[in-house]
């Protein structure tokens, strides 16, 4: 248990060091991965899977996933992303069409969601009327 905890700390440190200003440093990744592979196999599996999770997490923190009911042009997407860079460091973006939003946009960055969709506003109206949380 405690052994795993110490290893986990190490892995998380490796995760932070694998990035430079939000960008993945491939050289460092190779170094860390080779290092983890040298551990006894059960620890190596644990370390590598946690490391991969960590990398994915950090990448997600710099990726904006934009959803809207209709397809948006690159210009429109950039218009959405630009102001977000004041509080996030966005390096990649993905776009998804989600008709259930009805209108507006929804942006997900890491574990933060900015919901500006029509369906969400309708939901707020519903709550106001029924008084339910």
């Amino acid at each position, binding site marked *: 248990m405690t052994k795993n905890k110490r290893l986990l700390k190490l892995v998380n440190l490796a995760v932070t060091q694998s990035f430079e200003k939000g960008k993945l440093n491939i050289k460092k990744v190779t170094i860390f991965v080779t290092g983890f592979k040298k551990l006894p196999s059960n620890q190596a599996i644990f370390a590598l899977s946690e490391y991969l999770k960590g990398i994915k997490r950090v990448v997600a923190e710099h990726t904006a996933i934009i959803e809207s009911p209709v397809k948006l042009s690159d210009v429109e997407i950039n218009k959405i992303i630009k102001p977000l860079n004041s509080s996030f460091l966005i390096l990649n973006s993905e776009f998804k069409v989600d008709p259930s939003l009805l209108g507006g946009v929804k942006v997900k960055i890491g574990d933060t969601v900015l919901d500006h969709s029509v369906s969400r506003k309708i939901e*707020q109206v519903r709550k106001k009327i029924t008084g339910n949380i």
Partner: protein
Amino acid sequence: MNDVLKDIEKQLDSLKTKAVKENVGTVTEVGDGIARIEGLSEVQASELLDFGNGLFGIALNLEAYNIGAVLLGDFTYLKEGDTVKTTGQILQVPVGEAVVGRVVNALGLPIDGKGPIKSTKKYPVEKIAPGVITRKSVSVPLQTGIKAIDALIPIGRGQRELIIGDRNTGKTTIAIDTIINQKDVICIYVAIGQKTSKVAQIVAKLEQTGAMEHTIIVSATASDPATMQWLAPYSGTTIGEYFMDQGKDALIIYDDLSKHANAYRQMSLLLRRPSGREAYPGDVFYLHSRLLERSARLNEDYGGGSLTALPVIETQAGDVSAYIPTNVISITDGQIYLEGDLFFAGVRPAVNVGLSVSRVGGAAQTKAMKSVAGRLKLDLAQFRALQAFAQFSSDLDPQTRSQIERGKRITEILKQPPFSPVALEDQVVILYAATNGYLDEFPVEKAREFEIQYLKALSLREKKLMAEIADKKVLDEKLTSQLEKFTKEFIKSFSKINK
């Protein structure tokens, strides 16, 4: 119909829909009422989580990048990969007059089939206990209607008195009797990990005696998930706190905290928390102390309300030194100790008066009761000391013998059947008769008959005297001499038929 529409219109006018920013996570594991979640980097301990589709949870284990949460409700449709949101709130339960008379679950939702609870007020289930400056020491009695307790282990409003004993020794009966005996006190009975049939019996009993009118039952039975059993006492306390804040007196019973600790242990193992003594998690002491700390008597500046707590603990073979019993003993203001041996010997309620204490309740005992209780304690203590060696010697000196005989009659008078609480004035006069030796000339088997006839005669012929004791709550010289005169008369007529 038009009114409804207008109402909705008005509400919508004041509503501004807005874009929302929220913190989300992903479910990575579900099972046994517990979920593990990745993400939710901004979550706070005990925060309410929204799993969607009406399912909520409470965030408990906060680790670096993942958390453990307990699920409140039907989680059959929750699966890996589902999204969770923080709500910025702590779980709340409905409180207020609308809850009185109802049976609710750990979330405060009705389960008695009597329709929704029309309460507009909600309180968070976790609250900081009242501070020292808001509190006042105990000074008003909480009458249980049980002679042995009111006379020897008196409880004051705002006190925390533990009911402890093996299984089937009458713990629940004492709690229910106390509820039945209340008039101006709102009672909350929290059933934790009991059989559903037992809870149903309790509800039926309270309804039959009319006590349900001032009672709320919070039920998390053995068939409910451990997480609900863990939550129930906090919800019950929250309901009680509301009344305390309103300046009222409330009483809460936790039946029982042993099962509560077990539910918490089960939950903690599922959350993969490290366990300590008796496999309980390390913070099990804090689990109960932060619950019982919330019982208090507030001073006048804060409304003067109170919340009295009667936690119940079940022991194994009378062992009070096990982990959970010692913990709870150390955070209560005394304990009522019930003993299996006494119970089987027919001493019921099976209170061991030697091992039971009430550390603060004495200050709250009425003068009338005090005037008989002092003598009673002394007589019983001597009786206990002599009893042991009376078994060995056949020729005792007359004084010793009379002390033993007195003790036997007092023990008989302290017996009491379930669900028949005795009024204060009745308790005072019968204990007066017993401690002053008026029963000594009759056989021990006649003691119960004596009590019944004596109280009946008093209620018929000395209405004023009894009303005065009930009202002034004292037994002064004038009243004592009146009572003495009556008792002597009564003895004459009673001995004619019962010698």
